[in-house]
């Protein structure tokens, strides 16, 4: 396949997801409602508990990260979910499309949408709770967002693989399992407070390291020696694994007939 065709296929998916998102009122709801509710409730709780400004920043960073990752990973999962819901999966896989086109195209839309959510939540955090996302500077912020986007990509592709492997009945299980892993990643607390067995899981989540690196700029000592490098290395490893799992799931679905069943 030529580079032109590669880019065109990615663009086709990007445009499709953007159009679907722009026309669905529920997509808009999930884009704004839950993230705003999250920041307001956590921010107000931190005020009630009389947390210091640094402590409030700690939990708000986690809340915003969770929203950014959730919105972006949901969009990546739409690479398959939109076609599963509309029963058009077989048309998609009848075309010369690879999972790289599907996931990259969806990820681009996911990054744009979650960046919009981030800007909104950052503005809300500043206005309501005096929280400054730019306090660490542009580069740490960009690295933090990159970490969120990479984690979202891994999670979204993992959801795609699970759904393609077990059918749309596995949808709820897929969401629950990946969100559980995210919550373990020190969203609201340092992972040092977790029981040892759970802390091992948290240490395996890339987002843990990006949160750690970003929070260090708010006065919290880093728990890891090279958090950004570790986060990037883990992201690369999981991205490769998730891609392979999704590819294997598609091949299995072609073998078992699940690809056709999900289109009926």
């Amino acid at each position, binding site marked *: 396949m*030529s580079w032109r065709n590669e880019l*065109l296929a990615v663009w086709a998916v990007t445009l499709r997801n953007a159009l679907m998102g722009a026309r669905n009122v529920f997509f808009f709801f999930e884009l704004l409602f839950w993230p705003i509710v999250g920041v307001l409730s956590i921010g107000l709780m931190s005020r009630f508990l009389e947390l210091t400004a640094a402590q409030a920043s700690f939990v708000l960073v986690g809340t915003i990260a969770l929203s950014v990752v959730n919105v972006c990973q949901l969009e990546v999962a739409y690479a398959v979910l*939109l076609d599963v819901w509309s029963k*058009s999966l077989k048309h998609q896989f009848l075309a*010369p499309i690879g999972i790289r086109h599907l996931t990259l195209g969806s990820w681009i839309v996911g990054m744009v949408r979650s960046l919009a959510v981030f800007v909104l939540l950052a503005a809300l955090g500043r206005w309501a709770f005096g929280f400054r996302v730019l306090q660490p500077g542009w580069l740490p912020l960009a690295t933090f967002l990159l970490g969120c986007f990479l984690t979202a990509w891994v999670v979204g592709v993992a959801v795609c693989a699970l759904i393609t492997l077990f059918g749309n009945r596995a949808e709820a299980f897929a969401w629950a399992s990946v969100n559980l892993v995210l919550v373990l990643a020190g969203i609201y607390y340092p992972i040092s407070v977790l029981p040892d067995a759970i802390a091992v899981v948290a240490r395996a989540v890339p987002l843990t390291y990006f949160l750690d690196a970003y929070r260090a700029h708010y006065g919290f000592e880093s728990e890891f020696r090279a958090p950004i490098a570790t986060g990037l290395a883990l992201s690369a490893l999981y991205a490769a694994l998730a891609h392979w799992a999704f590819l294997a799931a598609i091949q299995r679905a072609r073998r078992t007939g699940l690809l056709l069943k999900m289109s009926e």
Partner: protein
Amino acid sequence: MLAIDAQDVEKTFRSGWPRRRETAALRGVSLTVARGAIVGVLGPNGAGKTTLLSILATLLTPDRGRVTVLGHDVVREAGALRRRLNMVSGRPSFLWSLRVGEIIAFYGRLYGVSGNALRRRVDSLIELCELVPYRRIPYSDLSTGLKQRVALAKALVNEPELLFLDEPTLGLDPDVAARVRTHIARLRREQGITIVLTTHYMREADELCDEIAFIKAGRILARGTSGELKRQIRLGEVIALKLDPARVPWLAESPGVLRCVEVDGWVECTVDEAENRLPELLRALHAKGIVIRNVQVREPELEEVFVELAK
């Protein structure tokens, strides 16, 4: 030159846990299709028609057998093959919020068409499939017939050399179905596309197909032109007579007559060979003083072949 060369294709579906159920969908199917031909795959529900088409279209991998489509192995060279074929299914479904033009354009981009070429392709397909007034209508707001036409437009977006039509007129009004059949015939005539179609409508198969393969329980039981199939299973020919008096019970006992039935005031006698039996029957009727008001000779309908083979 062959568009499809499938030999001894087997496919078994496994389901259930912990007790696994196995369903043999294809049990050694062999099928060859010449380039530019329209071949119909007929058979009762669950016969394996859709499974066969799905394997040929790379949506399903075979368990055993060798399948070459347009010179490509369907498993090892599926990527290259997908650029050259397309498919329409009986109950098409696309993303609900996308408009007609956007759906066709989306798939066009996946096949590497862009810019002005894409705009021209989308315009011409919308015109060909009579979708001009519906171009900006979301897919979810379309009627069944219009959805089928969108599916046909989408299937032509890559100018395929081979087109699979899985029940293309299922659930359509007769006039819409007739228009879809006209499109299909025109595609072969004007563009030389090879077409493999499955259908439950015998008239459709009779009208469109150069050849018909009859599949049942995962095996191809018979294959040939519509006429060859009718001769192959020896259904005989039908001599329809309008007589006065209308009822002549002894006709069924005449030599060479296989059976006689009364249909709408006609006596339809199925005979082994109409050419020899017709003069004999006419002479016998005349000798008994029975008035012959009308006579027609016809081959059995393809539907009768289907019923016979499906038994």
